[in-house]
Each structure stands twice: as structure tokens, then as C-alpha cells.
């Protein structure tokens, strides 16, 4: 049974009507509605993150000619549920020399920042919490809190590996943000709006060929550079020097255990889903697609991008620190800026669109 998007929206409308019937007045109605929405999105994202952890382990296993998790259920499908339960019960080991408030708040900020982006991500036609007119700019701004949380974790742990990991991650994310924003700006030139809904709607029609990725050459170049920069933003191999196991043990989260570690871990997978969802919205037409309901299109495309990132992780070697910086500043930045300027010129000249 496939739920049509209209039915999904219908469920929300029915709940809203139920709350009105219960005699709820403004502004409490708004508060309750938004509270329910955030709980729903939080739950869905936690489920997605659990699924992604399992999927990643299966893909890693099959690429390395193993099976991956097999014991718990069919092909180990509830392995991550068990892992999560185990992490919940674990002792929270604390270092004596830690910087107490900083150590405590780092995983909290990381976790919250990972979920904040979902306010403006359109999961389907009409399935968006708030269509801000600064949409994509809001996401770019809010994700910087992830960097701060990593720096806080590195500092608060009072551990040289953690500190090095935090520093490396900040340097990396700040560097790769430049090409990422430049490739996002290319899409904004195409669509003429920052709102996620407007960006998606300007890719409607013409079967699938109105998606921005099918606007050669600028759309394709922007998509590829965005995916590279997004891999770096999500701290994944080949750009995972912040937690390079062989060099830094585990990087910024080395001193964290139990539920605090789980928060970093979950946030990492949610971040991966976020960058994929943004790639879907900006380049792959968002919810647009023939036949199937819009939320299914969105989910399918996003999971496809996630699959791409996962295959990257298990097939590419890690870049060295200096190579990483040179790649960002000497290759990606000039490329994306040239792409941006040419795309703007083409739009101004009216060659296409």
C-alpha cells in the first residue's frame, strides 16, 4: 500500500481539526501543532538514521566480500536497534580533567543542529514545516553549529587526539563551505529564489528533464562539486581526517561514551541524510517525478544520493591533510566560482531559460 501525498497531508489536517475540536485556542494551537510536527520529524529521522547505520554496515560488508550483520532478524535488520539499546545502558565514562559545561553541551548542540535543517526541507508536495523565504541560506547558516560543537567536543575532552580532531574538522568544514555555497548559488541563479519550495517548483514538468542536474554544463558541474563538498561537510571518507582512525584513534569523540557518543553518531548519519536531501531538492528535482507520490520520489532520490556517499566511503582512500586543503582551495574554489560566473552570464544573456 502506497500512501499518496494527499493522504499524508490529510492526516495532518485531520489532527489539526481534532485539536480545534478539543477547544484549543491560538497561540497554544500553533505551539501544539509545531510541537507535534517536530516530534514527528524527530521520530522519522531517528528511524532513518537507524536504517542508515544498518545499510552502511551491509554495504561495507558486501564491498569487502563479507555479509555484515546477519544475526538479528532477516539479514540483521534489527541489529542497530539492539546497538542503540546497548548504548542506552552503557556507563557514561567521564574524564576528570574535562571542561565540564563544554563537554556536556557539545553533543547536545551537535544533535540539535543536525535536526534544525529539517524545518525547511520539503519532503513532498506541501510536506514542509515552514517555507522560509531564506530557505537554503537558513540551512547554510544553521549547519555551522555542527562545527562549533565539534570544536567544543575537542576542547572539552582535554585530550590531544580529540583537540586535533576538532581543529581538523573545523578547518575542513570552513574550507569546503566555500565551494559548497558557490555551487548552491548556481542553483539559485537558475531558480531565482532562495525558498526550497520555489526551487523545487521551478524544476517541474518535462518528464524529468527540467531538473537542474540536466542543465549542462553548469548544472552537472555544480552537482558534482556540491557532492564532493557535501561529503567533506559530513566528515566522511575520503574526507574523514577529523576522525581518521589510524591517526587520531577516533578524533573529536574519543572521550565520549554511552548515550553522548550515540548522539554524535546519530547526528553524523542525520547530517548525511541532510546533505543528500539538499542535493535532491537543489539538483534532482526534489519531490517532482512522474506517477509515484511526491514524498516517495523525494525519499527515493535522497536514499540514492546517500547510497552514492556510502559507496564513496568504502571505495576511496583517505586524503592527507595538505592534499585536502589544496584540493579545496586550489581546485574546487576556482572551479565553482568560474561555474557560478559563467552560469550567471548565460542566464543574463538569456541563452537558455
Amino acid at each position, binding site marked *: 500500500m502506497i500512501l499518496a501525498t494527499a493522504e499524508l497531508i490529510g492526516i495532518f489536517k485531520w489532527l489539526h481539526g481534532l485539536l480545534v475540536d478539543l477547544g484549543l485556542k491560538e497561540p497554544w494551537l500553533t505551539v501544539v501543532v509545531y510541537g507535534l510536527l517536530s516530534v514527528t520529524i524527530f521520530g522519522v529521522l531517528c528511524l532513518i538514521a537507524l536504517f542508515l547505520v544498518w545499510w552502511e554496515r551491509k554495504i561495507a560488508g558486501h564491498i569487502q566480500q563479507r555479509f555484515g550483520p546477519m544475526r538479528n532478524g532477516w539479514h540483521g535488520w534489527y541489529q542497530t536497534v539492539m546497538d542503540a539499546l546497548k548504548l542506552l545502558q552503557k556507563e557514561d565514562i567521564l574524564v576528570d580533567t574535562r571542561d565540564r559545561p563544554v563537554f556536556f553541551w557539545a553533543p547536545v548542540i551537535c544533535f540539535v543542529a543536525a535536526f534544525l535543517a529539517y524545518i525547511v526541507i520539503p519532503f513532498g508536495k506541501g510536506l514542509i514545516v515552514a517555507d522560509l523565504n531564506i530557505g537554503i541560506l537558513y540551512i547554510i547558516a544553521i549547519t*555551522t553549529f555542527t562545527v562549533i560543537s565539534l570544536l567544543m567536543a575537542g576542547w572539552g575532552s582535554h585530550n590531544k587526539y580529540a583537540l586535533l580532531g576538532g581543529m581538523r574538522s573545523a578547518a575542513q568544514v570552513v574550507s569546503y563551505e566555500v565551494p559548497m555555497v558557490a555551487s548552491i548559488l548556481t542553483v539559485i541563479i537558475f531558480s531565482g529564489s532562495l525558498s526550497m519550495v520555489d526551487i523545487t517548483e521551478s524544476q517541474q514538468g518535462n518528464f524529468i528533464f527540467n531538473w537542474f542536474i540536466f542543465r549542462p554544463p553548469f548544472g552537472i558541474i555544480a552537482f558534482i562539486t556540491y557532492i564532493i563538498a557535501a561529503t567533506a561537510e559530513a566528515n566522511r571518507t575520503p574526507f574523514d581526517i577529523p576522525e581518521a582512525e589510524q591517526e587520531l584513534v577516533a578524533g573529536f569523540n574519543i572521550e565520549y561514551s554511552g548515550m553522548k557518543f550515540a548522539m554524535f553518531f546519530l547526528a553524523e548519519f542525520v547530517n548525511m541524510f541532510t546533505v543528500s536531501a539538499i542535493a535532491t531538492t537543489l539538483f534532482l528535482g526534489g519531490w517532482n517525478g512522474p506517477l509515484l507520490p511526491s514524498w516517495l520520489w523525494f525519499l527515493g532520490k535522497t536514499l540514492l544520493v546517500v547510497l552514492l556517499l556510502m559507496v564513496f566511503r568504502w571505495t576511496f582512500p583517505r586524503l592527507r591533510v595538505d592534499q585536502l586543503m589544496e584540493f579545496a582551495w586550489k581546485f574546487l574554489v576556482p572551479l565553482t566560482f568560474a561555474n557560478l560566473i559563467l552560469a550567471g552570464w548565460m542566464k543574463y544573456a538569456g541563452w537558455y531559460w
Partner: protein
Amino acid sequence: MIEAGVSVIFWILAFIIIVSALAVVTLKNIFHSALFLILCLFSVAGIYIMLHAEFLAAAQVLIYVGAVSILIIFAIMLTSNLASERIVQSNKNALVAFFVCLMFLVTTIVLINKTGVWNYTSGVLPAENIITIGKLLMTQFMLPFEVVSVLMLAAMIGAIVLAREDKA
């Protein structure tokens, strides 16, 4: 009811801004100061949101939280005698600084009181105000916009000159 809620949120934000700003200049641990600076600047972005200036709020977070604060934290982490030491943030000139700040405060209060009627519109902001901002930046305010870019470029070149290894 909505107005009451808005003013409650304003007072909460104002309280956070003032407390965190005080923490920035008084705490002994300079890393904590930097984190409170981030909190302070983020709460200012909240005030902008309340004024329906979403673009300004996003720019505030992007520039101050995303770039400036991270730069400050970097500087703290890379400076060995600043890190994890209890430092005193004031020096002999504290008294002079206090009076200068007091004068500034008094001037501001006098100016606010002298302005009898504040000009503001009751109209609703256009939904596409971000396009208007972009157009104005590229037409009417072209010169300040370019001057800011040149200033940034100068700072960048200065940093490179300072950081470059001496070949000789």
C-alpha cells in the same frame, strides 16, 4: 495574546544577550568567553527574526557564528599561553574604559529620549524582500558594497603577508 508572547520572547532574548555579553568580558576562561560570544550573537539573530528581518538574521549567524567566532576559537586554540589558563581580562586602564563606556551609554540614552517620534511603517514586508535587498546592493548601494569587498581583500592580503615565511 500574540503581542504578549512576542514581548515575553523579546525579554528572554534581551536577558540572554546581556548576561552572555557580560560573561564574555568577565570570565576567566577565554574559551568559555568565546562560546558566550557565540550565544550572544545568536540571540541577536533571534531579535532580527522578531523584526521579520530573516535575511539579516541568517547573515548574522553565517558571518558571526560561522566565520568570526570559529576564527576566534582557532586563534585561542593555536595560542599556547591563552589556552586553559586563568587569565585576567582587565588591565590598568579599566577605570578609563568604564568612564568611556558610561559616556557612550549616557549619550545613547539621551539620543533615544530626544527622538520623540520613531519612524516605522505598519505595512507588511513583501514576501520577496530578499530580491529587493539584492537589487539595492547592486544599484543604489553599489559603492559601499564594493568598498567592503576591498576592505576584506586588504585584510586577507595583510594576513598572508604576516603569515608568510621569510625566505631570506
